[in-house]
């Protein structure tokens, strides 16, 4: 191809500043793994929202004769569970509660934990010591035990389960936020901002947040799958979601007895949990590298 004036990219357009988010978006689109993960995650969310229109059957209506039908049974494409309810419909409906219990506690804990961790990391000194040692007390409990203890004290129910999971996730998120902020705070552009006379709040808003939220967010999304599993554990103990509601963790627990009879059937909720957590992890990983300006 001949080199003409048209196919040489003019300097002016190369150097023109693209908006930050537009640049992030174009970098994200180039990352095929992240885009696939994003599509799967979006699919799961849509599935949860439109469950009543997609699901072929009532997730709560069982037929005793069809109990533990294998995958591929006529009328039951993914088989039927231990009470003869359509697995496909239950998996679709299950996305609602599972995603809710996986995402919402992590989001709330992300907001609260980041605020605590960034404040502790930026202020440093004794504020940092007191805050982080206090959180370490909570951090020292095994997360399952802590969630059970809080849920147990508050009683059963989705909202109490949500609350206990949120409390469980605040310390680890705050810890990551604190360490990222501490490392950013030592950099000279923060010193330069301090030398400008800006208030601490302004420095945190304009110079710290943009550089720490990415890594904290990626860490937080890795907790979504943990949150779903913990929620399932709470349900199993009768503390979180209660039967007959469809929730993947709860389904995994109730089907565990069927693992010798219909192992593939019993594995299905686990497959959903796995798919959700891996797609969220890869999506957040892709977002992080897309948000990294140094590419």
């Amino acid at each position, binding site marked *: 191809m001949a080199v003409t004036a048209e196919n040489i990219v003019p*300097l*002016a357009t190369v*150097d*023109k*500043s*693209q908006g*930050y988010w537009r640049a992030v978006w174009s970098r994200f689109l180039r990352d095929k793994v992240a885009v696939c993960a994003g599509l799967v995650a979006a699919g799961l969310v849509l599935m949860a929202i439109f469950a009543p229109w997609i699901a072929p059957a009532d997730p709560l209506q069982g037929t005793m004769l069809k109990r533990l039908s294998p995958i591929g049974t006529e009328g039951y494409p993914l088989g039927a569970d231990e009470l003869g309810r359509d697995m496909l419909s239950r998996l679709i409906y299950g996305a609602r509660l599972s995603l809710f219990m996986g995402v919402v506690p992590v989001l709330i804990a992300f907001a609260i934990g980041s605020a605590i961790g960034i404040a502790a990391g930026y202020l440093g000194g004794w504020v940092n010591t007191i805050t982080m040692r206090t959180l370490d007390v909570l951090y020292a409990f095994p997360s399952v035990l802590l969630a059970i203890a809080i849920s147990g004290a508050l009683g059963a129910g989705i909202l109490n389960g949500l609350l206990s999971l949120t409390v469980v996730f605040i310390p680890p998120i705050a810890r990551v936020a604190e360490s990222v902020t501490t490392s950013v705070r030592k*950099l*000279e*552009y923060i*010193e*330069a*901002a*301090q*030398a*400008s*006379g*800006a208030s601490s709040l*302004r420095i945190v808003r*304009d*110079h710290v947040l*943009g*550089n720490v939220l990415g890594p904290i967010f990626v860490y937080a999304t890795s907790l979504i799958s943990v949150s779903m599993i913990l929620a399932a554990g709470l349900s199993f103990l009768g503390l979180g979601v209660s039967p007959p509601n469809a929730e993947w963790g709860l389904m995994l627990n109730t089907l565990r007895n069927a693992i010798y009879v219909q192992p593939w059937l019993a594995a299905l909720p686990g497959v959903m949990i796995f798919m959700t957590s891996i797609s969220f992890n890869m999506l957040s990983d892709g977002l992080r590298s897309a948000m990294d*300006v*140094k590419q």
Partner: protein
Amino acid sequence: MNTPILSAHNLVKHFSAGGFGAKRKVVRAVDDVSFELARGETLGVVGESGCGKSTTARLLVQLLTPNSGSVRFDGKVVGPELPLKAFRRQVQMVFQDSFASLNPRMTMIDSIAFGPTVHGASAAEARRKAQDLLDRVGLDPARFGGRYAHELSGGQRQRVNIARALAFDPQVIVLDEAVSALDKSVEAQVLNLLMDLRRERGLTYVFISHDLNVVRHISDRVMVMYLGEVAEIGPASSLYTAPRHPYTKALLAAMPSLDPDRRTHEAPLAGDPPNPIDPPSGCRFHTRCAQAFGPCATQVPSQFAVAKGHLAACHLNRSEETVA
């Protein structure tokens, strides 16, 4: 004499190095440092690494709070007499690491414009000012304004850092090893830019470097630091030609020379500086000094005035008038 534009009065900064109670250890990073800066002059600060140059710079711009002592701007004590925010506009700093001193998520225009907006300029005003300053430091605002720090070379980044400091319209700029990390040709360009700006805007510089040649080139006066103390301070010409402190002599002897006849045959100074947690008694330099004698190990030397405006903290000059 006119009021010095910026002066340090008995600045002391100790850092904790662990331990509690009686066993508490402190690093005496800066110990009783005083000096004055006349309007429009450039004071070079030299010394080995760890001698407290950077700590002095950060104390001077109030990024660190001294354990004792004070900084005065135009005769007013910063803090009680002059509000910190007003002081910030007048005294700015340029750091050594050009990359770490720019927010990786901010464009160059935004980085420069941040300062003026803090001090009440509108966003549009601040951007216009940032564009003018980019142009002034030799970077085309249309090409470089929208770029991020990683898209620029070291020299270009340091120009942006200088522009950011200038955006406050300061009277004093503290340059902490600001050209040390640049390669020689770029270093020369940035130095020339600094000297042009000094002339245009009547700026006062504190120029910290370990490069004695560069310091001599740009400075009117030079301060030599050793283990957190001022060893010698004086006009660049007399300090370089007639050093009166053995440490200054050793530093100057260590300067590389292009003249084969002036080749250094043996290291003028052996070993590392002593540990600032437990500095030597008397004169802190006596453990490495070739000319140490009687009082050096026990008595702390005063600042002796060896010539007009030239002070040296060395017992060899005790016949001279004591200043401090």
